[in-house]
C-alpha cells in the first residue's frame, strides 16, 4: 500500500522549511514522488499527491498543467475531503485553454445540483474561476436555478458567478438578468443585495448606459442601505450613471452629500468625495462640501488619507482649480514627503497649477528641487516640466528665451536622463520660433564648449541637437572660429557615430559660413556693401582662416578612414571641399596684385555652398506624405519591400520622411518626384546632394518655406534676446517654495507682459502625432446589447426561455396607474405631471404600433405586483432602443 509510505503535505512543508540552499533539488524530488503517487488508484493517495502538487504550484510556481486530468478525477470522488482537494487544484491551476476543461462539465453540474451545501459552494467557486464559454453555456440553467435557492450562502454565490457567466456567455443575460434584478429588492437579506450590487457595479463600469433604467432601484438602496460595502458599490454605479442623465445627478447629489458628512467610515467618505468630484462636478455646493472633506484628509496623520486627499485634488483640478489652490501650501510641502507616491501626486498637482503667468517661477522652483532629489524623482520632475511646457505646441510659454535657457540648464543637472526629449524640443523650437534662434544658438554653444559634458552618455542626444542648431543657425554665432574648435575638439571621439556625424556636418556649415563672410568682407573693400554679419567679420582674419583649414586637416583628416559610413562620408565631403578651396584661397590670403581673379572664383564656390546651406528649413506636417497622391503605376509597397531585401536592416526608416523642394504643391506631385531625382543624380553639385541627404535625416523638421516667410515678415521688430532674469533668488527649502507659491500661484492673473509672445509656427493639422483618442469601442457590445434587450424590449427571447404564469392583460390605463403608484411611493418626486402625461400619451401611440413586442414585457412586469418600480415604466417603442429611457421616478 503506497499510502502508508506516502509523505503528507505537512512533511513536504516541513521539509521545504528545513532546506537552506537546495530548495529546488528538494522540490524536484517531491515532484518525482508526486508524479508516481498521483497515478495510484487509491483515492487517498491520489488526492494527497494532488494536494502536495497544488501547494508547490501556488508557492513555488511549478507547472501542474500535466496533472489536470488527475484533478478532474479527484473532484468525482464521493469523499468530500478528496473532492475539496480536487476543486482547489482546479481553481488554482486551470486556464480557459486547459484542454481537458470540458470533461469537468458533468461533474460540475452534478455538484451544483447536490444537496450538500458546501459541495454546491465548491462547484460555484470553481465555475467563477475557470468558466469559459462552453462551461458557462452548459451550466447557465443550473446557476439560474440556484439564484432562487432558499439557502442564502448558495444564492449569493450563484449571483457572484453570474458575473462570469455574462462575461463569457452573453446569452446568459436573457436567462438570468430578470432574476438578478429581482434580487436587488430582497431587502430582507443584506448579503444578497451586497452580492447583486457587486455584480451590477462591475457590469455598469463597462457599459453604464444599459443600466440607466435600474436607477430607481439603485437610488432606493442608496437611501435605505446601512451597509458601507453596499453603499460604496452603489456610489460607484452612480458615478457611471450620473454623467449620462443630468436629472439623475440632481436627484442623487443631496443624499450623497448627506452620506458624506454623516458617515464615520473613511472609505465611504472617500467614495462620496470621488463620486462628487468625477460625476457631480457641476454642483458647486457639493464640490465645496467635498473640498472641505478633502482638507480634513490632507491634514490627517495617516499617510493613506493624505495620499488619497492629494489624489482627490488631482481629480478635481481640471474643473475646479480653486480647490487645489486652496491647498497649495500643503501640495508644495508634499514634494518633500518621504513617500514617493505622495511626492508624485503632489508633483502632478503642482503641474496642474502651472499657468502662463507663473510658469517661470514654478519651473525655477522645480528645477532647484530636481537638483537635490534622487535620480529617479529628479527625472520625473524634469519629465513633467518638459511635457507641461511643450503641451499643445508650447501653449503656456511666452518667453522662449527663458525656456530655451531653462532647457540648457536642465541638461546640466547631474542626474538628467531626458536627453531625447530635450533634443526634440530644442530642435522643434528652433524650427518653429524664429525669434528665439539667437538664444538657442547661445545655449547650444555653451553646451558644446564644455568638454566635461561629452563624457555623459545621457547628454549625447542634447549635444547632437546643440551641434545641429549651431550649424543651421550659424549666422547668429558671435565667434564661429571658436565654435569650430569646440565641434572638432579631441574629446568628440567619446560621442556615438551618429552624433559625431552631426558634429561634422555642423562644422562643415560653420566653415562655409566663415569663408563666406571672410570673402564677403574682402569684397566689401571693393565697394560691395557687406550684409548682416557685421559682428562676425571681426573675427575672420586671414590668420583665422588659415587656422581653420589647418584645424580641419588635423581633426577631420583621420576620420576619412572611419569605420562608420556616416562619419567617413561627411569627413570626406569636408576634406574634399578644403582641397578644392585651398589653392584658390591661398593667393587671396597673401595679398598680391593679381589676387582678384582668383578670389572671384573662390567666392563663387563658397557662395554656392553657402546659399545651399542657408535655405530655410521648417517642420513638415505629419500628414504631408499622405497628401501626396500616388501617381498611376507606382506601387509604393512593392518597391520598398525590394529595397529592404537589398539593403537589409542597415537602412534607417527614411522612407517615412520624404523631402521635397520648396513648394509643396500637391498637384505637382509627379514633378516633385522627378525634380528630387534630378537633384540627387546631379554629380556636379556636391552640396545639393548633401542638402538632400540632410533633409532626409531631418525631414521631420522641414516646413514649406512660404509659410515661414509670411510669419517672419510680420514679426521683424521683435526685441533682441534678453539675459536670464537674475531677480529670482534660488531658494532651496520647501518653505521657500511655499512662500514663492504665495506670489505665483494666484489664480490666472494676467501678468503684464514685457514683450509680446513670439510667433510659433504651427501647421494646420497633423502637427502633433495623432493621438489615438478614439473612444475605445465597447468591447462587450454583445453583452450590453443583451442587457439592453432584456431591459428595454425584445422580451420575446427572454420570455421564450423563462415562461411564467400570470397572464393578466395590461392596458395603457393600468400603466398610468402604475406610474401614479410609484409617484406616491417616493415623496420626493418633483411631480412632472405635464411631462408625464405627455409621455404616456406618446407611449400609448407607440404601444398601438408595437403591441406584440410589448405584450410579453407587460405581462412580466405585472407579475411582480404593484410595487414594482421597474424599467417598464416608460418603454420606448422597440425601434428606438438606442435611446435609453430614464425612469420617471427620479426626475
Amino acid at each position, binding site marked *: 500500500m503506497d499510502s502508508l509510505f506516502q509523505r503528507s503535505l505537512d512533511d513536504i*512543508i516541513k521539509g521545504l522549511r528545513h532546506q537552506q540552499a537546495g530548495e529546488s533539488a528538494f522540490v524536484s524530488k517531491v515532484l518525482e514522488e508526486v508524479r508516481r503517487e498521483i497515478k495510484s488508484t487509491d483515492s487517498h493517495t491520489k488526492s494527497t499527491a494532488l494536494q502536495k502538487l497544488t501547494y508547490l504550484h*501556488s508557492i513555488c510556481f511549478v507547472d501542474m498543467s500535466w496533472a489536470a486530468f488527475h484533478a478532474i478525477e479527484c473532484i468525482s470522488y464521493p469523499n468530500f*475531503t*478528496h473532492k475539496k482537494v480536487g476543486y482547489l487544484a482546479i481553481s488554482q491551476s486551470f486556464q480557459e485553454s486547459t484542454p481537458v476543461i470540458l470533461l469537468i462539465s458533468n461533474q460540475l453540474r452534478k455538484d451544483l445540483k447536490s444537496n450538500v*451545501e458546501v459541495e454546491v459552494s465548491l462547484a460555484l467557486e470553481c465555475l467563477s474561476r475557470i468558466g469559459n464559454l462552453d462551461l458557462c453555456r452548459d451550466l447557465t440553467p443550473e446557476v439560474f436555478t440556484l439564484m432562487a435557492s432558499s439557502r442564502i450562502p448558495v444564492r449569493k454565490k450563484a449571483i457572484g458567478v453570474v458575473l462570469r457567466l*455574462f462575461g463569457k456567455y452573453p446569452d446568459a443575460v436573457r436567462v438570468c438578468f430578470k432574476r438578478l434584478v429581482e434580487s436587488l429588492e430582497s431587502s430582507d437579506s443584506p448579503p444578497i443585495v451586497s452580492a447583486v450590487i457587486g455584480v451590477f457595479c462591475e457590469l455598469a463600469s463597462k457599459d453604464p448606459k444599459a443600466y440607466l433604467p435600474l436607477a430607481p432601484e439603485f437610488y432606493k438602496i442608496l437611501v435605505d442601505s446601512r451597509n458601507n460595502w453596499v453603499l460604496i458599490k452603489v456610489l460607484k454605479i452612480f458615478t457611471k450613471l450620473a454623467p449620462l442623465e443630468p436629472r439623475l445627478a440632481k436627484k442623487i447629489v443631496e443624499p450623497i452629500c448627506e452620506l458624506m458628512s454623516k458617515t464615520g467610515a473613511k472609505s465611504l467618505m*472617500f467614495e462620496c468625495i470621488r463620486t462628487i468630484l468625477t460625476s457631480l462636478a457641476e454642483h458647486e455646493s457639493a464640490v465645496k462640501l467635498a473640498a472641505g472633506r478633502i482638507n480634513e484628509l490632507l491634514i490627517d496623520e495617516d499617510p493613506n488619507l493624505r495620499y488619497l486627499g492629494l489624489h482627490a485634488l488631482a481629480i478635481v483640478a481640471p474643473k475646479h482649480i480653486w480647490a487645489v489652490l486652496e491647498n497649495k501650501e500643503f501640495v508644495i510641502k508634499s514634494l518633500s514627503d518621504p513617500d514617493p507616491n505622495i511626492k508624485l501626486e503632489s508633483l502632478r498637482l503642482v503641474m496642474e497649477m502651472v499657468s502662463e503667468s507663473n510658469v517661470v517661477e514654478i519651473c525655477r522652483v522645480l528645477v532647484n528641487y530636481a537638483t537635490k532629489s534622487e535620480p529617479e524623482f529628479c527625472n520625473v520632475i524634469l519629465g513633467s516640466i518638459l511635457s507641461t511646457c511643450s503641451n499643445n505646441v508650447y501653449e503656456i510659454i511666452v518667453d522662449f528665451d527663458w525656456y530655451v535657457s531653462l532647457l540648457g540648464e536642465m541638461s546640466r543637472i547631474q542626474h538628467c536622463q531626458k536627453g531625447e526629449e530635450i533634443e526634440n524640443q530644442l530642435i522643434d523650437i528652433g524650427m518653429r520660433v524664429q525669434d528665439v534662434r539667437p538664444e538657442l544658438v547661445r545655449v547650444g554653444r555653451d553646451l558644446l564648449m564644455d568638454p566635461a559634458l561629452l563624457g555623459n552618455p545621457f547628454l549625447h542626444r542634447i549635444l547632437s541637437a546643440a551641434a545641429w542648431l549651431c550649424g543651421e543657425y550659424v549666422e547668429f554665432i558671435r565667434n564661429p572660429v571658436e565654435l569650430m574648435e569646440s565641434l572638432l575638439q579631441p574629446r568628440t571621439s567619446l560621442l556615438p557615430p551618429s552624433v559625431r556625424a552631426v558634429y561634422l556636418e555642423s562644422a562643415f556649415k560653420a566653415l562655409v559660413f566663415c569663408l563666406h563672410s571672410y570673402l564677403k568682407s574682402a569684397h566689401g573693400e571693393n565697394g560691395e556693401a557687406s550684409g548682416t554679419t557685421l559682428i562676425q567679420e571681426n573675427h575672420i582674419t586671414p590668420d583665422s582662416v588659415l587656422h581653420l583649414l589647418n584645424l580641419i586637416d588635423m581633426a577631420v583628416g583621420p576620420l576619412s578612414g572611419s569605420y562608420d559610413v556616416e562619419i567617413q562620408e561627411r569627413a570626406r565631403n569636408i576634406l574634399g571641399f578644403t582641397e578644392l578651396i585651398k589653392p584658390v584661397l591661398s593667393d587671396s590670403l597673401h595679398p598680391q596684385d593679381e589676387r582678384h581673379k582668383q578670389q572671384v572664383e573662390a567666392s563663387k564656390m563658397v557662395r554656392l555652398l553657402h546659399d545651399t546651406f542657408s535655405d530655410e528649413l521648417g517642420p513638415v506636417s505629419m500628414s504631408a506624405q499622405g497628401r501626396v497622391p500616388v501617381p498611376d503605376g507606382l506601387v509604393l509597397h512593392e518597391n520598398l519591400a525590394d529595397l529592404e531585401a537589398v539593403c537589409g536592416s542597415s537602412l534607417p526608416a527614411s522612407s517615412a520622411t520624404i523631402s521635397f523642394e520648396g513648394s509643396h504643391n500637391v498637384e505637382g506631385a509627379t514633378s516633385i518626384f522627378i525634380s528630387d531625382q534630378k537633384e540627387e543624380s546631379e554629380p556636379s553639385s556636391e552640396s545639393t546632394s548633401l542638402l538632400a541627404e540632410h533633409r532626409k535625416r531631418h525631414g521631420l523638421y522641414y516646413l514649406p518655406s512660404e509659410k515661414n516667410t509670411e510669419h517672419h515678415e510680420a514679426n521683424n521688430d521683435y526685441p533682441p534676446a534678453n539675459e536670464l532674469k537674475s531677480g529670482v533668488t534660488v531658494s532651496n527649502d520647501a518653505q521657500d517654495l511655499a512662500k514663492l507659491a504665495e506670489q505665483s500661484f494666484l489664480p490666472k492673473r494676467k501678468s503684464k507682459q514685457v514683450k509680446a509672445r513670439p510667433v510659433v509656427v504651427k501647421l494646420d493639422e497633423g502637427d502633433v502625432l495623432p493621438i489615438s483618442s478614439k473612444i475605445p469601442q465597447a*468591447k462587450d457590445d*454583445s453583452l450590453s446589447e443583451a442587457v439592453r434587450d432584456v431591459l428595454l424590449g425584445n422580451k420575446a427571447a427572454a420570455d421564450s426561455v423563462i415562461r411564467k404564469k400570470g397572464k393578466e392583460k395590461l392596458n395603457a390605463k393600468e400603466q398610468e396607474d402604475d406610474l401614479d403608484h410609484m409617484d406616491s411611493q417616493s415623496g420626493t418626486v418633483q411631480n412632472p405631471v405635464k411631462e408625464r402625461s405627455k409621455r404616456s400619451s406618446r407611449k400609448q401611440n407607440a404601444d398601438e404600433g408595437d403591441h406584440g413586442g410589448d405584450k410579453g414585457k407587460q405581462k412580466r412586469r405585472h407579475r411582480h405586483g404593484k410595487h414594482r418600480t421597474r424599467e417598464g415604466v416608460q418603454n420606448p417603442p422597440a425601434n428606438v432602443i438606442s435611446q435609453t429611457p430614464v425612469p420617471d421616478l427620479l426626475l
Partner: protein
Amino acid sequence: MHYTVCKELNSVILSVSSQINFVCLISRQGKVRLTKWYSTYSQKERSKAIRELSGVILSRGPKLCNFVDWKGHKVVYKRYASLYFCICIDEEDNELEALEVIHHFVEILDRYFGSVCELDLIFNFHKAYYILDELLIAGELQESSKRTIAKLISAQDNLVEVAKEEASSLSNIIAQATK
C-alpha cells in the same frame, strides 16, 4: 432565430473583469504564502508579478502609504506581523475599501486559528484558501459578516471530519484492501 442570435453574440469574446485581480500573501523574507488569481494570468506572469511586487512592497518603509501603482493597476498592501497581505485592484477602485477587505480577512483568520500567525498559514495553506473563498467570489466581496463565514467554515470542517472518519473506518480499509 434564437439560435442565430446566440451565435452572433458568441462570436465576440468578452471580458468583464472583476474588482480584485489577485490576492497574495508574502512573508517579510519574500516567501510566497498564498496566491489567488481572479483575473487570467499565465503561470509565468504569476511568478513574475509576485517577484516584482515583493521587490517593490518589501522595500517600502513603515510610515509610507499602503498603495503602490503597478502596471496600470493599484496594489493595496498591509503588513500584519511578518506577513504582507496584498490585493491588486483596478485604477478606479476604492483603496480604503481594499484595506478593509484585507483587515476583514485577517480578522476572520484570527478568529478561526485563534490569534493567527504565519506558521498557521504555512501549515494550513488549503484552509486559508477555503476561508478566502468564503470571503470573495469572482473577485467580489461576497460576505461581510464574520460570524457567517465562521459558521460556513466550521460546517465544511465537520464534513471533512466525517469524511475522514469514514475513510479510516475499519470496513472501509478492508474494502479498499480487497478491491
